[in-house]
């Protein structure tokens, strides 16, 4: 199974392979999207060991629930992203995770911080900074809360002490700005 060659497939072929439970689909999915999904998960659950377990859980769920994906309703990545985000949020509010978090506060934090450094960041911090450079930070901040950290609009409104309508508008504006940038 050790295969260093990265596999990439067009979306429709990927979906067909996944739905027919072709193992090539999992290789391709992992190569194409594991980093993006891990980016989401590790922003919600910063502990690397836990985040890695959740990444595994996410791929298991993607494999097992392939029947439940309907291409007519949206892109494959959006579907996988929602699975990853939901798994991470479930973990965040679970009892055992809350207890671990408390323990880590008590323990020496140095080990934990060291462990975090093991992650090879995908030049991501740099990439994001470049990407959002020139965009209004208040727009990007709201989008990140909702898209990466899994806040609901209501929770984001409470956290930022802003009206719900403002949150919705900022998310939309942020996406419009990003769209211009990508084009």
């Amino acid at each position, binding site marked *: 199974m050790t295969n260093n060659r990265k596999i990439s497939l067009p979306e429709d072929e990927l979906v067909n392979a996944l739905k027919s439970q072709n193992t090539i689909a999992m290789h391709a999915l992992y190569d194409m999207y594991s980093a993006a999904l891990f980016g989401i998960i590790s922003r919600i659950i910063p502990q690397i060991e836990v985040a890695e377990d959740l990444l595994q859980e996410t791929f298991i769920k993607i494999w*097992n629930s392939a029947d439940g994906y309907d291409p007519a309703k949206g892109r494959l990545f959006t579907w996988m992203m929602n*699975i990853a985000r939901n798994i991470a949020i479930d973990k965040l509010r679970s009892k055992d995770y809350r207890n671990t978090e408390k323990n880590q506060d008590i323990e020496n934090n140095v080990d934990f911080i060291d462990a975090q450094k093991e992650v090879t960041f995908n030049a991501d911090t740099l990439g994001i900074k470049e990407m959002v450079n020139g965009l209004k930070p208040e727009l990007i901040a709201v989008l990140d809360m909702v898209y990466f950290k899994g806040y609901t609009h209501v929770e984001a409104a409470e956290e930022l002490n802003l009206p719900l309508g403002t949150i919705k508008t900022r998310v939309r504006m942020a996406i419009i700005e990003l*769209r211009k940038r990508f084009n």
Partner: protein
Amino acid sequence: MDEGRAYIETGILEQYVTGQLTARERYEVEAMAAKDPEVKQEITSIELTLEKYAMVAARNPREILKDEILHKILTKPLEAKSDKIMQKIEPAIIPLHDNVYEAKIRKLYIALAACVALLAITIIALLSTRGELGEAKNEIIALNLDKQKFATEASYLKENNTDLQEKNKIVSDPDWKTVKLAGTKMDPQANMIVYWHPAGRHVMVDNSKMQLPANDQDHQYQLWALVNGKPVDLGVFDVKADSTQILLKMKEIAGAQAFAVTLEKRGGNVGPTMDQMIVMGAVGI
């Protein structure tokens, strides 16, 4: 076109893609997208934008993880199949605090169900009580009718009894004279009895021993005493088939040789109409 544009402007599509909508709202968006290609196009465009953004923000997990994860998934097909049945996932919003709300909503549902059940029981009880109440009312009406009937009967019997006692006293008392009046040629079958107490001047007519034809509305029988050859009015009476009274008290008279009854106009006459005399009887010694 304008409708689709306005729909896009609401920002609901961004919420759809970022997983902010409830199942119902998602169906709405999906129906809209199926109907309007512009909406569908916009959703895909938002998805691609966020997909690229996620790619930029990606973090590589440790290299070793790939083999671990793929090995785990691809070597356990049986478990995978059973899992599949258990976990049909639907991407949905998962608010951090929804447990509390769910519990509250569940409690409210239970309370609501209890209220509905209580209401149903109350209504059933009320209906059955109403039915019983109606029956009870009917019974009361029936009992009331019975009571009235019995009261009437009782008062009738009481009256009868009083009359009978009095009559008994009269018959056994030597001071009372029993005068039998026999039918004249006007009606030979007719006869009746008059009780007379000369000392007390009382005169009674015995209804139970009366054998006179019933009088009509325009006429009444009039009782006369013959005192030294002259008729003295002792009052009028009716003869009815359903008469309840046994003894009729007539006007007083101290002395008389005979009694007679004539049929007169209603209310009586000053003097007897001789050819209408129906019965007559002399006082025995």
